């Protein structure tokens, strides 16, 4: 069965510093990986995805993620965090035909 792990419930970072939100996955076959973000009182917003090709994927709001097949990881990164990046981040993988299997989410708190 497909699964996604986000080992950190919360990540704290100071504004201007680089951030990393970790995600590891377990799938059979080639993984289709996604990152979504949820701001307070909003729905999930798509950030980026990895399907094939370059291991470094660039997405919205300056975020990027690095696919590492040997470590089965897809960590989300940003070179310089903003206070407005504070939100709940979900890593997900396609399972079945097109349904998403999500991690439990990581709360990112960026302090001024």
């Amino acid at each position, binding site marked *: 069965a497909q699964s*996604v792990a986000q080992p950190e419930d919360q990540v704290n970072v100071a504004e201007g510093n680089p951030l990393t939100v970790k995600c590891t996955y377990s799938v059979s076959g080639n993984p*289709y990986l*996604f990152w*979504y973000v949820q701001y307070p*009182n*909003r*729905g*999930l*917003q*798509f950030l980026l*995805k990895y*399907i094939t090709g370059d291991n470094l994927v660039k997405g919205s709001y300056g975020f990027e993620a690095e696919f590492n097949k040997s470590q089965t990881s897809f960590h989300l990164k940003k070179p310089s965090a903003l206070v407005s990046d504070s939100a709940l981040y*979900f890593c*997900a993988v*396609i*399972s*079945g*035909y*097109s*349904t*998403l*299997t*999500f*991690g*439990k*989410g990581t709360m990112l708190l960026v302090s001024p």
Partner: protein
Amino acid sequence: EAGVTQFPSHSVIEKGQTVTLRCDPISGHDNLYWYRRVMGKEIKFLLHFVKESKQDESGMPNNRFLAERTGGTYSTLKVQPAELEDSGVYFCASRGSVGRDNEQFFGPGTRLTVL
């Protein structure tokens, strides 16, 4: 272009009552999904419609949950009778017909509280 909308945004009901959640997908999206997040846990898949047909309902927890998508447009999810463990946030998402790896667009969710 309007996004995915859900109604109501919040619902508080007592155990044993019935609640119906509604989702309006992005116009033209054949694929519609329901997910649920119980407090602090993963977002879990419930079911998937392609147009008006149920493609996959393997995530539906039990027969107290009934989903419909009449005419392949909006969808409803009815919980009858509601139990305490049904509390959570119910998300709806839609996706166009091409490419299963294309992103799903999510609605804001309905927060259901069963007392």
